[in-house]
């Protein structure tokens, strides 16, 4: 079982234990090979995935036209740098979130130290903060005119930038920091859910066979959590690739910046679509490579024995140090930006009271709930289809369904408007021909289209969590249920759903929070006179009146907070045979 990479020094007994805990029992493999899925699964999956990939397909379609000199220009000028910057950004944010999220999750799951419960809740909260708002806050704080550098100059009597060195927040490093500090909760959540659900027995066996606690972490817990970590990091990577707002404000020239310059300043939408298409292909390649590296390694364990986690106590000053250390990511991703927002909001509270503001809040809530429900239902179906009927088509199709997440928001919106309007106009043409009246645009510019955009954009988020949850359910349970006469669908209802409640809940909440924050696609796809909190805030931020926008930004954060806290509950309470802590 090399996929668990227990290391060459592992004693043979431990290897065997790991194999038995992590491997696929032979009889399950045989059962899987024998079963034959009905074509209904394949057809339904194909239909759903086709809708989910509509914008991606539209972008590829647009990119088929000739784009003139777009590429020769880009290759000769900014493309090499943009590629390097994008790569550095992705690697940097990937590593930062992986290390922060995993370390924090392990610490909080396995150790007991002061304020542990509070730290656990706090660590999830940065999810509520839109990344472009965090970027505004940090530039405000750390650039030359900001309070930090101003104070330093006052303290040391420096006057000009030539007198001292200070790290430039407007740099790739700055962007890694800003994006990493808001995105690490994706990894924290998936890692924590995975650690919480791992059988303590697996860890204990490793200990009895002579592993140190750290050794157990590296050779058992981490390999078992790998799919969850990969899911979390791939969300982080896609989010960093599609980000424009934060990166633009930080002056970091990524591929996305080139896509926009090609489209908006050089009026070359074909060239822009081609760039986006190349980016999609790269993302797909990364995901495929990670999958291949993992092969079909299963990371569920076969034991049904659950006991409460035997926390190790960290006492005395070390405990406080642990608390301080593990709360740092929260301070960076939420605490500091919040203080800056509050400072600004204090002078602009009037914006809180307007009617527009209230209706924008309600709209955000409504869309968030709709998108969350729709995304979870679709993701659940796809994940289950892959499980019970996974054939050569369904498996890659389900993987591809979440690709829309890697598209920058405006690009996704255009990829959606083109086919939806096309459909509308086609229906209109038919009805005109046969009935002599016009139906106008039915989907384009409707709330349904907007909700669809959110589902397409955030399906990857829902799918990641639900897939990981599904993977942790032993196939033996499927086999048992089916041999007792359940059909695939009744087994889903009676066996999988109850076990998946935490995963479904956290997936729904993630989609909800992401929908609340979504800006570029909402701006372009919304109906007339329709604002969400994010567009409302942006209308002001675009006027370069960020201070006036802060009450709205705070509201996004506050409305986002409640679900984020619920999300935490779902994850920490998600231990089988063990409710709450």
């Amino acid at each position, binding site marked *: 079982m090399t996929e668990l990479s227990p290391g060459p020094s592992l004693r043979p007994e431990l290897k065997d234990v790991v194999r038995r805990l992590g491997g696929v029992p032979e009889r399950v493999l045989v059962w899987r090979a024998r079963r034959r899925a009905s074509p209904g699964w394949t057809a339904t999956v194909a239909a759903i995935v086709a809708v989910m990939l509509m914008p991606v397909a539209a972008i590829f379609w647009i990119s088929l036209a000739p784009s003139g000199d777009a590429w020769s220009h880009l290759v000769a000028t900014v493309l090499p740098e943009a590629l390097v910057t994008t790569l550095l950004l992705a690697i940097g944010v990937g590593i930062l979130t992986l290390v922060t999220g995993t370390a924090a999750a392990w610490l909080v799951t396995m150790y007991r130290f002061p304020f542990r419960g509070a730290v656990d809740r706090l660590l999830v909260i940065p999810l509520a903060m839109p990344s472009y708002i965090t970027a505004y806050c940090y530039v405000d704080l750390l650039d030359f005119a900001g309070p930090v550098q101003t104070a330093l100059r006052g303290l040391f009597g420096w006057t000009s930038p030539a007198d001292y060195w200070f790290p430039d927040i407007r740099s790739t490093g700055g962007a890694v920091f800003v994006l990493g500090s808001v995105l690490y909760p994706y990894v924290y959540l998936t890692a924590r859910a995975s650690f919480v659900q791992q059988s303590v027995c697996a860890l204990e066996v490793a200990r009895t066979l002579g592993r140190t606690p750290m050794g157990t972490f590296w050779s058992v817990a981490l390999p078992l959590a790998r799919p969850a970590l990969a899911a979390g990091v791939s969300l982080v990577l896609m989010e960093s690739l599609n980000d424009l707002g934060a990166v633009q404000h930080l002056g970091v020239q990524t591929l996305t910046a080139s896509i926009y310059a090609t489209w908006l300043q050089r009026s070359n939408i074909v060239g822009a679509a081609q760039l986006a298409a190349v980016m999609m292909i790269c993302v797909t390649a990364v995901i495929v490579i990670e999958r291949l590296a993992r092969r079909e390694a299963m990371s569920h364990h076969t034991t049904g024995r659950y006991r409460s986690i035997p926390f190790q106590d960290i006492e005395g000053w070390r405990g406080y140090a642990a608390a301080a250390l593990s709360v740092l990511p929260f301070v960076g991703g939420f605490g500091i930006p919040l203080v800056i927002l509050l400072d600004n909001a204090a002078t602009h509270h009037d914006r809180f009271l307007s009617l527009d503001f209230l209706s924008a809040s309600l709209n955000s809530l409504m869309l968030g709930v709709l998108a969350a429900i729709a995304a979870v239902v679709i993701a659940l179906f796809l994940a289950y289809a892959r499980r019970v009927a996974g054939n050569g088509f369904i498996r890659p199709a389900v993987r591809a369904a979440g690709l829309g997440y890697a598209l920058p928001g405006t690009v996704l919106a255009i990829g959606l408007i083109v086919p939806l309007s096309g459909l509308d*106009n086609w229906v209109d043409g038919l009805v005109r021909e046969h009935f002599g009246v016009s139906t106008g645009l039915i989907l384009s510019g409707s709330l349904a289209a907007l909700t669809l955009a959110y589902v397409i954009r955030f399906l990857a988020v829902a799918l990641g969590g639900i897939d990981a949850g599904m993977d942790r359910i032993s196939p033996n349970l499927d086999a048992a249920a089916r041999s007792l006469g359940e059909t695939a669908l009744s087994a889903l209802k009676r066996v999988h759903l109850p076990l998946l409640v935490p995963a479904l809940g956290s997936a729904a909440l993630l989609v909800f929070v992401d929908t609340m924050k979504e800006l570029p696609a909402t701006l372009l796809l919304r109906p007339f006179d329709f604002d969400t909190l994010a567009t409302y805030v942006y209308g002001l931020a675009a006027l370069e009146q960020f201070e006036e926008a802060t009450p709205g930004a705070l509201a996004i954060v506050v409305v986002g907070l409640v679900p984020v806290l619920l999300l935490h509950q779902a994850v920490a309470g998600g231990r089988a045979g063990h409710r709450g802590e």
Partner: protein
Amino acid sequence: MRTSSIHRLGPFAAAAAALAALAVSTVATAQEVNVYSYREPDLITPMLDAFKAKTGIKVRFIYAKEGLIERMAAEGRNSPADVLLTNEFGLLSEAKSKGVTSPVTSAAIESVLPASLRDPEGHWFGLTRRARIVYASKERVGQDAITYEELADPKWKGKICIRSGQHTYNISLIASMIAHHGEEKAEAWLKGLKDNLARKPAGGDREAVRDVKAGLCDLAVGNTYYMGAMLKNPEQAAWAEAVKILFPNAADRGTHVNISGMAMAANAPNRENAQKLMEFLVAPEAQAMYAEVNNEYPAAEGVKASALVESWGSLKPDPLALSKIAELRKKASELVDKVKFDLGPGS
């Protein structure tokens, strides 16, 4: 088989007919005009509210920063858009070339707007003008005149702040430099400007002024109306107080000016109302509002800029045709990439 397929189509046809009837009835009864806007809502709602109060015509509004022209093109003949509002000229010419606009003939518009602010074929016209000027530190900059060419002079090394070169306001300024000096000289100029930057080109025009106040740079390039907006903002007033406005090239060809403007949609469903809105927005009342509320230069002849704007000195606009700038935008954007402007000084 046949009957069953007709049966299956039956409900569809009924539903389609019902929907069609619904759509038709909403179009026919409402007195409204639909606005697609690249201009931020706060800058335009006062005028739209005044229009509604005066005519009773309801204004429906969508603002987006990017993609509205593409949305109109995709929506095609069923697009609900009546008019397109833009915050700069490039988008107007883009809209026309994408075929999403249509010509308007209106004596009310033609009589008040100079020909240079109107499309010869009537597809678009300007509503306001803004100059791209230099904000100079009162404390550290002695001179009271400047040229764009001078921004590349090494004496300003490390002293200039500006937003991203790929921002449309800068693209249009760079395009005007290409028009006046040719591509080669414009490239050398842009490179010189880049070498003079105090920091990476990013953020907004107001932040550049903030950085002048803080002492990071001595000169900031920005649009005129931001001065008025900063003065109204409690935090930003101090930034504005720290700078003076220099109109570049006032002594020779004049200062680069861009327009915000408007176009009639190709498939406007409420064409009459849309034209009423257009005529309202160029009439003295709305033009004065633009001048007072937004501190922009009104496009209509005979309407004065606000007292504050007048106090900055007189604007001598560069007479270069807007269409020339539109034509050179792509070149300008390529130059920005070529000199790696957005990577900042020292790259």
